């Protein structure tokens, strides 16, 4: 406690910076950007920035849901499969000639109920959500492969409404970036500014205390699972709008990338601590590495190796910062 009174203005400023949960991700972002800027002249351009936002959109939207759920103390490993089912359902509905708006609503309702299923199974049986959603990840992937026979489905129409998910504007920007930014802002406000957000933190931080103080812990978690399903489905809509086709293997490994993004952004896997803006930064960093490696002319295979190292370093920075703040 005494060190606080003796600290200089600079160290006070430093300490204030450390209090931001996103600090690990921001430091990582600056360092990696500097490296890529040295490696490639095109890196620090608006075009590249727009491209990064575009490739980040789907992962970012899903990472927001993952971070939300992890903060409440649960996991969703099925987001990659739900993402693919959402995109596939939308493509099939559109190809069947159903109104675009209705198709989107139906496929979102489908993915929300998949999240609900994860929640019901986890909360009713008491098995860890890690296991429930691992099982559901395999189940939905299998269903997807069985229904399509492993073939790609393409969407041939050109609906204005579907284009809204990923339309170009201002030259290089796409509307998918706007969706990502909008979703990030909304869920950050919900998490840090509303009563429900307060309950999410409490539930993940200590479900026993939350329950003793009258918070309906199961309801909080159930809504979290449904948000995760909804955002995975939204990611699916963006993806279909961008590529116009769905591969049944779409989104494999996405669950781990989403968790990576959340952790880089300062979310603790043990729950009760984290940030939505951080998840956005984490996803942006993943997209940045993907784009930067291409611009630097490195083989795409290096992408995963890079992400792995960044994840570990960001996690180390975050835990160190947290310890420093707690003195």
């Amino acid at each position, binding site marked *: 406690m005494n060190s606080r009174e003796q600290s200089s203005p600079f160290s006070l400023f430093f300490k204030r910076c450390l209090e931001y949960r996103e600090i690990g991700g921001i430091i990582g972002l600056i360092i990696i950007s500097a490296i890529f800027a040295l490696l490639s002249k095109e890196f620090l351009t608006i075009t590249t920035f727009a491209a990064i936002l575009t490739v980040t959109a789907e992962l970012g939207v899903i990472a927001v849901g993952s971070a939300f759920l992890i903060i409440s103390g649960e996991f969703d490993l099925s987001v990659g499969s739900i993402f693919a089912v959402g995109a596939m359902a939308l493509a099939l509905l559109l190809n069947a000639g159903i109104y675009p708006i209705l198709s989107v609503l139906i496929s979102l309702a489908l993915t929300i109920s998949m999240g609900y299923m994860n929640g019901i199974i986890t909360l009713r049986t008491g098995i860890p959500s890690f296991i429930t959603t691992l099982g559901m990840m395999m189940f939905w992937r299998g269903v997807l492969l069985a229904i399509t026979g492993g073939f790609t489905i393409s969407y041939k129409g050109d609906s204005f409404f579907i284009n809204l998910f990923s339309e170009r504007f201002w030259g290089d920007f796409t509307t998918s970036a706007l969706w990502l930014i909008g979703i990030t802002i909304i869920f950050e406000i919900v998490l840090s500014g509303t009563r429900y957000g307060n309950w999410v933190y*409490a539930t993940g931080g200590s479900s026993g205390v939350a329950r*003793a103080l009258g918070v309906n812990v199961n309801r909080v978690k159930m809504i979290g699972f449904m948000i995760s399903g909804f955002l995975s489905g939204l990611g699916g809509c963006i993806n279909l709008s961008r590529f116009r086709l769905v591969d049944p293997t779409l989104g494999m490994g996405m669950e781990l990338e989403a968790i990576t993004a959340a952790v880089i952004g300062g979310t603790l896997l043990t729950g009760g601590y984290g940030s939505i803006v951080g998840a956005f930064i984490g996803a942006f960093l993943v997209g940045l590495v993907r784009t930067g490696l291409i611009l630097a002319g490195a083989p795409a295979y290096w992408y995963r190796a890079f992400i792995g190292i960044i994840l570990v370093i960001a996690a180390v920075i975050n835990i160190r910062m947290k310890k420093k703040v707690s003195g």
Partner: protein
Amino acid sequence: MRTEEKFPLVEMKDIRKEFGKVRALNHVDFRVGQKEVVGLLGDNGAGKSTLIKILVGLYPPDQGEIFFEGRKVRFSSPQEARAVGIETVYQDLALVPLMSISRNFFLGREPTRKIGPFRFLQKKSMDKDCHEILVEIGIGVRSPSENVEFLSGGERQAISIGRAMYFGAKLLVLDEPTAALSIKETNKVLDYVLQAREKGLSVIYITHNIYHVFPIADRFTALDRGVKVGDFNKTDTTPEKIIEIICKTRV
């Protein structure tokens, strides 16, 4: 107002509770008067916690009646008990360490403004009210936005007790509040209990250490293996006498 004074705040009559073959409580009577601090004493497994859990609605009693301010009640959850003014401070289930003081303070009862489907926290008034309470209970050096993680055990207990007083409790139930505290912090918590009584609250103080509760309590009830072994007024007993009685029944 008159009627309130005629009745004790809490009256539990002939409470019995069995868990399987274990008789946790056997025909126990327990009473807490208005503005009274009662020490609920007994060794581990004496039935202190069970009695309190029945009072606040965590367990239903197998037999017996409970009166609160003269009215017969039976709470089916701690929320119902809280609604009439019974606040419980649990030893280890009081605060979420990773959250700020003010967020903890209002957890479960956040002041909100409804806009559309969202209930927005009124953070400014939360911080302001919380700060006033912190000053009042003597830990005003703390900022309401500080995380609970950095607080000492005594400060945490202070906040839990302050929270119960703020939300207008009539009865404060403290479950071993000083079990993990230093001597200095223990004395502070005992001060808070006296403050609470001055404000008109009654307090049930559960402990197995009579020396903690003796200076502040008005009356003591001792349990041993589910049976009440004595009710003592502070004026006509000493800590040693109470210990002697609890130990005698053991033999």
